[in-house]
Every structure is written in structure tokens, then in C-alpha cells.
């Protein structure tokens, strides 16, 4: 990894903790990237090419469809295992057993240990499996590929955007540092009350249990959240509140699987940032900001692939670090 990228790597982590993206200093941009930035400035051919490509862009949903299928299958597996009694995937998203292997959600395990104030040895194996698994698969990949709330929130977002287009609602962004504050509050609450307070309101846990063990009144809270997201603030829970997202984001720091941005063909029109759940991770696509010709997207990215589907120039692609070199 060369210097501009290394510096950006650190900044992407701060970005996840709520800092606003900044324009990089001239000196932080690799010469090769600077050259491309310069080349694109006022280049008529390039602008014409971009107009043409955008006019002929066909809407793809490849990754979204794969992702929805995976998310639904994973959650259905829980439900069917219980209802058909096949013991394939027992438990719920907080803790489960996949053909005998323990899988324990990191955030829940953390909460439990903080509340109990003991390292629960039984939990370590299951937590370790999940840690390694998600570290390999991208961390917040959990969010967009497994979390049942994500799917509902995605649909709520569509409704929000439709209403916004009709000027009936507007999105009011909230300070992203709030998520870190919530994370700390819930950690302290667990420590202080000796109870996993967060679990009582985790839409992820509530939905997972509702699917498997039947609906309950706790779903009202989930509905309230979705309501807030539709009418007041787009994707508010996942953007500004969910501690699970932050926990898995941290896991994703070391992940080899991520979306990679290639500066060369990018039109800088920003379609990707309009579909992204966490648009701050895509600050690099803004004109003049890419610090190198290829820039990996940071750990807060949920690897949902919406940007990959949307990008009219093919500048955003899924990538496994080191794999392309290997092949």
C-alpha cells in the first residue's frame, strides 16, 4: 500500500466514527491520479462520452437481487429450521447453531459480557467463528446481506424517496457521531444496569425473533423506527443509531472483501452516492478527491452493491484484496 492510500485508510476509519469527509490536500494525491484529474477537467470528449453512456445506461439489479435472495434465505432458514424441526440453523440472529456450530452475534455477546461482567467462555468460540467469518466477508456485509431490518428499511427508503420526489417529505440528515454516542450509551447501560438494555430495542433482534417465534408488540418499536425513516430522516436507524452496524464496521476494517473504485472512467456524476446507505464512504468519487487511481471503499460500507449496480461507467466493483494479484 502506498502512502496516499495508507493515509486514506486511517481517515476512512475516522469517517466511520462520524467525521465528515474532507477534500484531500494536493500532496496527498498520487501523481498518477493527479494526472487523471487534470485530464478530465473540461475535457469535451470525456463529457460527451459521459452524456452518451448515461443516456444509454440500463438499470441493473444484479447485486441487489443476489443480496435480497441471500437475506431472505438466511432468515427463512432460521424460520424453517424451527417450524420443520430440521435443526439446520437453530436459534435467532443474536445466537444460533448452524449444524451444531455455535454462531454468536458480536454485539450481543459484547453486551452480555458487559452486563454479566464476566468473560463467558462458552461464548468465545461462537463469537470467534463470527468474528473471523465477517472479517473475511466484509464486516457490515452482515447489515445488507443478513439483517432483516435492512430489507424493511430499504423498502421504507424507497417510499421515502418517492414521497420526497413529490415534495411531501424531505430528508434531514443527523450528525453521524450520534451512532458512536449510542454505542457508548448502550455499553454503559449494560455495564450499569446489569441488563442487556439494547437487546430490548434492537430491531434486528426483535424482527429475527418475531419471524421465528411469532410476532409481538415489540414490533411497534420497529414500525415507529420505519415511520421516522420514511417521514423524517432517510435510513436514520442504520446511519445514525445502530450499534450493531458500528461493531461490524470495526470488524470490516481488516476485511479483504470490499468495493473498489477506479478513477479512470468515473464520470463523477454521483449516482452511486444517491443510492448508498452510507454515502460518506463514497466521498472519493467526488471530482478531484480520489487519492489514487484505484481506491478501496472504507469499512463503513455495507457491501450492498447498489453502487456497483448503479455506476454507469463500471468504476465501482466488488474486489477481494490481493486476489487479482494472485490470479
Amino acid at each position: 500500500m502506498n502512502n496516499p492510500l495508507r493515509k486514506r485508510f486511517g481517515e476512512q476509519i475516522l469517517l466511520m466514527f462520524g467525521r465528515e469527509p474532507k477534500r484531500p490536500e494536493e500532496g496527498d494525491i498520487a501523481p498518477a491520479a493527479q494526472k487523471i484529474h487534470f485530464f478530465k477537467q473540461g475535457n469535451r470528449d470525456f463529457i460527451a462520452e459521459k452524456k452518451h453512456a448515461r443516456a444509454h445506461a440500463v438499470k441493473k439489479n444484479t447485486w441487489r437481487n443476489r443480496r435480497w435472495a441471500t437475506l431472505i434465505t438466511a432468515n427463512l432458514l432460521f424460520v424453517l429450521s424451527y417450524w420443520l424441526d430440521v435443526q439446520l440453523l437453530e436459534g435467532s440472529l443474536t445466537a444460533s447453531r448452524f449444524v451444531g456450530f455455535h454462531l454468536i452475534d458480536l454485539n450481543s455477546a459484547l453486551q452480555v459480557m458487559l452486563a454479566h461482567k464476566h468473560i463467558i467462555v462458552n461464548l468465545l468460540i461462537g463469537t470467534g467463528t463470527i468474528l473471523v467469518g465477517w472479517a473475511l466477508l466484509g464486516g457490515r456485509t452482515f447489515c445488507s446481506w443478513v439483517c432483516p431490518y435492512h430489507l424493511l428499511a430499504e423498502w421504507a427508503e424507497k417510499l421515502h424517496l418517492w414521497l420526497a420526489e413529490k415534495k411531501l417529505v424531505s430528508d434531514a440528515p443527523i450528525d453521524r457521531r450520534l451512532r458512536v454516542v449510542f454505542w457508548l450509551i448502550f455499553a454503559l447501560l449494560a455495564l450499569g444496569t446489569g441488563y442487556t438494555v439494547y437487546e430490548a430495542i434492537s430491531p434486528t433482534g426483535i424482527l429475527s425473533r418475531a419471524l421465528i417465534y411469532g410476532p409481538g408488540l415489540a414490533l411497534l418499536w420497529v414500525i415507529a423506527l420505519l415511520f421516522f425513516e420514511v417521514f423524517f430522516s432517510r435510513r436514520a436507524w442504520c446511519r445514525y443509531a445502530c450499534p450493531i452496524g458500528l461493531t461490524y464496521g470495526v470488524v470490516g476494517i481488516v476485511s479483504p472483501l470490499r468495493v473498489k473504485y477506479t478513477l479512470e472512467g468515473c464520470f463523477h456524476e454521483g449516482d452511486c452516492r444517491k443510492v448508498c446507505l452510507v454515502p460518506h464512504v463514497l466521498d472519493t468519487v467526488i471530482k478531484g478527491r480520489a487519492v489514487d487511481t484505484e481506491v478501496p471503499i472504507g469499512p463503513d460500507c455495507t457491501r450492498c452493491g447498489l453502487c456497483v449496480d448503479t455506476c454507469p461507467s463500471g468504476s465501482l466493483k466488488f474486489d477481494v484484496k490481493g486476489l487479482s494479484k494472485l490470479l
Partner: protein
Amino acid sequence: MSDDPKDSPSAAPEPAASSPAPRKPALTAAQRMSRERQQQARRRVLHTILLSGGVMGAALSGWLPLAYAQRQRLRPPGALDEKDFLASCIKCGQCVQVCPVNAIKLADLVDGFGVGAPYIAARDQACDFSCDAVQCILACPTGALTYHKPDFLKPRSGAGLAAKPVLKAKQKDPEPTLNLTERIGVARLTRPESCLALQGKGFKGQARGADFKGRMRYMEVDRWKPIPVADHPYDVPECDLCVRECPVAQAISIETVTLADGRQRRQPVVHEPCVGCGVCEMVCPVEQAAIEVVPREVWRA
């Protein structure tokens, strides 16, 4: 300039794009801009408060009822003491999944003790140990349900069982006991005035009526499959349903007791091996049950 309005501050290398630039011709535009910014900032604060308030309020509604819990509930067998149990249960429901009679339920918002925490409503469906091996403990990933408490958690005096309970259903097996070291609670004759045995009455019919959904394993019917209590009617000259159906050996018996005025009565008497599974409470045919399990009650001689 870029086509995306969001990108505009970064598009041209203008200094200090974030502060309102004091350029002469754009004064009115800048003023409009700043008013819009102000409004946006105000909305941002409002929404931050709304979201934070909502989240904290919801979190409190999940926790407060717990802090002020009046009603105690039966926890699944092998549960740690209440505080430790609530701290360590990860609310996965694996205990729910393995129970052959579906005795374990997960609490909802209004139950007042933490969304997703497992409990047993014995009157509706008791734990009858038809799983033979306290499967729920085996399933629990966190040790919130456990065969043996870790060293740093001492059993309360009277909560520990004197010996491993002998399961009547397994009495002929090489290993007839249940791996359970602490009781869930203790059964008590809380309403002696309504106990049929005490009134010298018998009982005929379905213990809890035709509509009762509860199930239980009856050894004489099927060793492995629990059947509805409604499918197993009784006809007994002296009511002893609680004693008859108790799955644990020597936990309860009908005894002749002498009252203070010298009169003699027959009544169920609970003994030390009672683990508090709640079967007696479930089958007791009078409404409300004459015998009940008191959650987390300890044995007193």
C-alpha cells in the same frame, strides 16, 4: 462545476467553501443560503433530539419494568439467579426450540421483564421433563441456563437440591436422574380452601377442560410423545392429580394431616425433591389452581 449539487463545494478549488464567502454579487444569495442553513441546522437538532429521545425512551421502556418488576416469573430449568440470568441471556430462543412441550416462551413488550427473555407460564404449559435430559440447558449457548453454576456464582441456600432429582419416567433406566442441581421454585398449596383432596372430593373428567391446549407426557400412553392433557381424562375417587402427574419421584404426596382442632384431612404435601417444574399447577383441576409453583422459592424444612 459538477452536475451533482452535493459535490459543488469540492468541484472548483475555491478556498473555504464551508464559510459563507463575502463575495459582493452573491450577497443576497449568500443570505438566502445562510437562512436555509440555519433552518437545516434547526431541523437537524430537532431530529437528533427526536431520534435520541425515541431510542432512549424505548430502551427505558424495555428496562424500567424490569427494575421495578413486581411479579416474578418462572425461568427455564437451570436458570442462574434472576439478576445473573437477565444479564447473561442473549435472547436467542434456542431453549424455546428444543422443548418438546413448548413450555418456554419469550417475553414481549408488555410482559414487563425485558423483551425476548424466556419464561415459563406453568399454568398454561408446565415443563414436564418429557425431553428426559433438560434439553433447554443443553441448548443454551451462554450458560444462562446451566447444569453447574460456575464457581463465582454461589447457589442461594435452599435453592440447591439435596440430590439429583429422579425422573419417574426414567426410574427403570440405568441413569434415572436429571442433571439438575438447583430448583426452579417450590410448589406450595397456596389456596388450600379450594383443594379437592382437602374437601374429601374426587375428580372426574378432563383436568383443565376440553379447550385446554397444554400437553404432557403420560408414560402409560406414550413414552416419547407428549399428548394434550385434554386427551387424558381422569376418574379418581380422591383428587390426587398433582401427585399422580408430578414427574419427579418423591416430590409430592397426599398425606393425612391433623389440623389444630384435632380433625384429620387429606392434602397434598410438597417434599424436598420438588424442583418447581409446575406440572402440579398445570393439572390442578380447580380454577384457580390450588397448588402453584412460587418462582425462585427455596426449600425450607
